[in-house]
């Protein structure tokens, strides 16, 4: 592989994390981002599950892109994505039952996460396998980092913990941040901070 394609792929990866960050910049995938981030570990596992699906679906779709006629591309993409989501769900139920319990319905809902279908449509269907792999890693990493940051912020303000390590007693936390309204408030501030830093 020559250096030029490698630099391009690295740029695709970094773009996914910074310039095209799905949560903080594109504002995609808001449903899992708001609902599953009640703690850092939940946010991170949701991000990793989505990342796995994104990478696999990007690879398969860019491999098959010439075999899928344009008119049926959406159903074909959805079947591919749903297959990987179901695999994640079954494996999680088998080996990480506690985590599967706490993420609940949001694992099957990765199928309708607009990030996954969006990347399949906008990137994997137009680029080669290798760039699609890097795009999957980049966007997935961006999503994971964003969800972990949001989860940690909410967990810290709400319960005084970070990854279950207690910083101050739970009774002095603002329960609001663990609940739904806190998700919106925390996300708003994180988006503002992220965009401010990125612009400078």
């Amino acid at each position, binding site marked *: 592989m020559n250096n030029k394609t490698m630099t391009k792929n690295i740029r695709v990866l970094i773009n996914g994390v910074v310039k095209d960050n799905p949560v903080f910049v594109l504002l995609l995938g808001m449903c899992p981002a708001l609902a599953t981030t009640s703690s850092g570990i939940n946010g991170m596992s949701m991000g990793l599950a989505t990342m796995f699906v994104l990478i696999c679906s990007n690879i398969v779709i860019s491999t098959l892109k*010439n075999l899928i006629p344009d008119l049926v591309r959406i159903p074909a993409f959805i079947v591919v994505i749903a297959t990987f989501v*179901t695999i994640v769900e079954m494996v999680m139920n088998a080996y990480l039952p506690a985590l599967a319990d706490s993420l609940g319905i949001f694992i099957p809902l990765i199928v309708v996460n607009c990030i996954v279908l969006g990347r399949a449509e906008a990137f994997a269907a137009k680029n080669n396998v290798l760039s699609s792999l890097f795009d999957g890693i980049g966007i997935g990493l961006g999503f994971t980092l964003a969800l972990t940051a949001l989860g940690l912020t909410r967990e810290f303000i709400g319960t005084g913990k970070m990854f279950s390590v207690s910083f101050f007693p739970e009774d002095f936390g603002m329960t609001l941040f663990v609940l739904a309204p806190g998700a919106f408030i925390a996300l708003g501030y994180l988006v503002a901070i992220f965009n401010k830093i990125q612009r400078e």
Partner: protein
Amino acid sequence: MAKLSSTFKNMLLSLFFICLLAAGLLAKVNDMTKEPIADAKALKLEEAIKDVVPDFDNNPVTESYKVATDSGDSLLVYPAKKGEEVVGFAVNSYSDNGFSGNIQVMVGFDMGSNVINYAVLSHAETPGLGSQMTSWFKPQVHESSLIERIFGFEMKKAEVKSSIIGKNPATTQFAVSKDGGDIDAISASTVTSRAFLEAINKAYVAYAQSNDYASTGATINASEDSIEINE
């Protein structure tokens, strides 16, 4: 290779083969994970029983039986035995009056009808509020946090009478204090607390009946019903 054109035949074949591959792959993964999923479920049940009753050496899951309650349904009771002697009962109880519907709890009683411990098996209560019931009704433990350890002072919680551990439902009123009972409800989650205590009371009724069986020396064998359920 050029992109396939959208003719009817191409579309049909393309979708057919993609679905076929997906189905094959899923069948394979399902086959591989079927056993671990069943094991994980059984393990969760066993852990819950182990948490709520004294040490036992029988298999409560295979010896479980159903006890009818007044409300017309039945609860599963898991007897814990040491040798031939019954040392406690774990009762799988529930309530449908939670803030978000069904709550499943496993409650353990010793032979003197005191609650030994409980474990919440499943619930859909609000995280941060109703979900506190997994520890609220146990004695308060002060977990010292980082800030307290660094600065060497203690940030105390308000005292609450919320623990049901070691109490006897026959002598203690298992209802929230707002309703004239002896147990303090979770702040801002009275509905959840009521539902939780309802489940505990239901479990006590079932326990009282099985305790009668045990003390009269009647042998209780696993009924076919309960075996079916445990599969």
